């Protein structure tokens, strides 16, 4: 009976430790430095006319929305 009680206590402690560790875990905000407050990594990609656009060419002007989407821009994709 006594041993069982200990077992339960140990289990409880482990669960609490797990809950604590999960609470401490930083929310995933992207790989390697891509997170709030960080500088967005520059890139160069072709637009719909095949003209290569760099992210940095839009800097110093206005805010930029970088919209990633699966396959289709609107619903369903």
């Amino acid at each position, binding site marked *: 009976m006594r041993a069982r009680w200990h077992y339960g206590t140990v289990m409880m402690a482990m669960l609490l430790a797990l809950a604590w560790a999960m609470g401490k875990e*930083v*929310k*995933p*905000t*992207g*790989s*390697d430095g*891509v*997170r*709030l*407050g*960080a*500088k*967005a*990594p*520059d*890139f160069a*990609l*072709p*637009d*719909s*006319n*095949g003209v290569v*656009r760099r*992210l*940095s060419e*839009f*800097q*110093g*002007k*206005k*805010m*930029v*929305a*970088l*919209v*990633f*989407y*699966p*396959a*289709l*821009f*609107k*619903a*369903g*994709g």
Partner: protein
Amino acid sequence: MAVSFRAPEFNRDLCAKESLNFFVLSDTDRSVIKRYGVYDAQNDCAQRVTFLLDKNGFIRRIVRQVNPATHGKDLVELVRRWQLGESIYRDLCARCHGADGNATDLYPNTKPLGGIGNRMGDDEIVKATIASGFVHEMVLRKEEWQALAVFVSGLPLLTGDKHDARP
């Protein structure tokens, strides 16, 4: 700007069809999608995630719950709230916290706020920083609190030793 793995030809048709007034970019090898941590390996494409960058290229907001039916409208609303938050921050917070949230010479012991949204949600930011700061809650309406949280969540991180300092 919008990024997917689709080829430029596909995007040209898409732009014409949807009358899109911005750049639709092709990341056919998924390298930028992966760099930004939004790669959906199961479907080999990008997740539906929006990054709002300020004019200096800092990530100020990351939207992971994007509704494809309303995201144009939602984005306009987000920018409006961010700008409202910016003006409130400038009026009430910047004097001590600094324009970028990383303290001023006048109040050097103010905890840096840069990147605070990586550790806290908006409600927590309101509770932990705004409500415990010197701005009395009576000063702001609920909508203004929320706008302020939107702005504060993505304040730029310091570079160097004070980088990502914890509150």
